[in-house]
């Protein structure tokens, strides 16, 4: 078999993604070949924003997101492919799975920001932030208090005092978490504005890096705070 022959279908699909896997004509429609009306696979390189037909922005109207999701779900849902060929069923299943992941990721603001950071800056590791030493110290001290509370008699005077302290800490940390989420929302707006301006000069690059770094910091710190809050909730209810 000659792998290099121009009629070798699988190879051509890989080389030109805009070509229909079935009839090999150029695909003009978004998910369906206009000529043979076969469903087209969503490329693995397609980012979740594109997958849902949204611009790469962090502020997303949940109702718009949901509408886009349902619209595309109707196009891809495997139930609609029961009478189709095996190849089409497989594609619809893959597409539906990708779409679900995209929707779940973008629906949650924190996951959405994490995802955008991945897209914009590669892995988390590439953005270096200095560890928040004060927050770490606080978490480790709090953990000591938690250990003391767990080990002691809850109904004793010391037990009650420890509990009161833990409850106050929990409230303070939950407030802090809310503040972080508030700042994240503000950064979303700044990020989107920067994207809308579409500038590519050095100042825009500096601003872009500053926003990415700050978002990375907040997301990390939020994870630390969330972990200890979960621990507090599990212990004192």
């Amino acid at each position, binding site marked *: 078999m000659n792998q290099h022959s121009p009629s070798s279908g699988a190879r051509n699909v890989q080389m030109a993604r805009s070509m229909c896997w079935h009839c090999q004509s150029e695909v003009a429609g978004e998910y369906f070949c206009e000529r043979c009306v076969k469903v087209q696979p969503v490329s693995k390189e397609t980012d979740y924003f594109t997958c849902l037909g949204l611009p790469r922005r962090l502020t997303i109207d949940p109702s718009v997101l949901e509408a886009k999701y349902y619209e595309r779900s109707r196009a891809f849902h495997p139930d609609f492919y029961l009478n189709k060929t095996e190849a089409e069923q497989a594609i619809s299943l893959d597409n539906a799975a990708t779409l679900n992941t995209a929707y779940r990721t973008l629906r949650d603001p924190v996951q959405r920001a994490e995802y955008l950071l991945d897209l914009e800056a590669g892995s*988390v590791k590439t953005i270096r*932030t200095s*560890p*928040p*030493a004060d927050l*770490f*110290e606080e*978490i*480790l001290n709090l*953990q000591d208090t938690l250990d003391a509370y767990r080990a002691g008699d809850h109904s004793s005077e010391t037990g009650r005092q420890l509990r009161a302290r833990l409850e106050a800490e929990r409230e303070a940390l939950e407030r802090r978490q809310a503040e972080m989420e508030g700042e994240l929302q503000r950064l979303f707006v700044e990020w989107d504005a920067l994207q809308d301006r579409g500038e590519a000069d050095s100042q825009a690059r500096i601003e872009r890096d500053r926003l990415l770094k700050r978002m*990375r910091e907040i*997301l*990390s710190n939020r*994870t*630390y705070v*969330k*972990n*200890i809050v979960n621990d507090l909730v599990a212990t004192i209810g």
Partner: protein
Amino acid sequence: MAYSDKVVDHFNNPRNMGSFNKDEEGVGTGMVGAPECGDVMKLQIKVQNDRIVDAKFKTFGCGSAIASSSLATEWLKGKTLEEAERIKNTDIVQELNLPPVKIHCSVLAEDAIKAALADYQKKAGSKTGTGSTGTGSVQ
């Protein structure tokens, strides 16, 4: 996923848990975190004549993170600064039999060692009377 016996042992009987006063002379403090999972690790060394005479840790995280830092303090005690610098996360993975999903815990421990050594060097360097000859390679 089951933890290896060694991880369970370190988790149940953590070695050298606690802390030194970070301002004390000869103490180096490494404070690191893993933003992916929210684990926090503090590792401290006490140095005399370029040798680590004591080490302590505090870790907020999963069993593997606790075991990794506990093991790290055990290994650090008695080592010279240069020897300590050579501890690799892969050594910890091997010793504790960590599964792939927990390798980042050993990386965190290595980072904590490096951070503690760097902090010690910084503190020692900022003092005028550098008694020792050279401070080994800072790599």
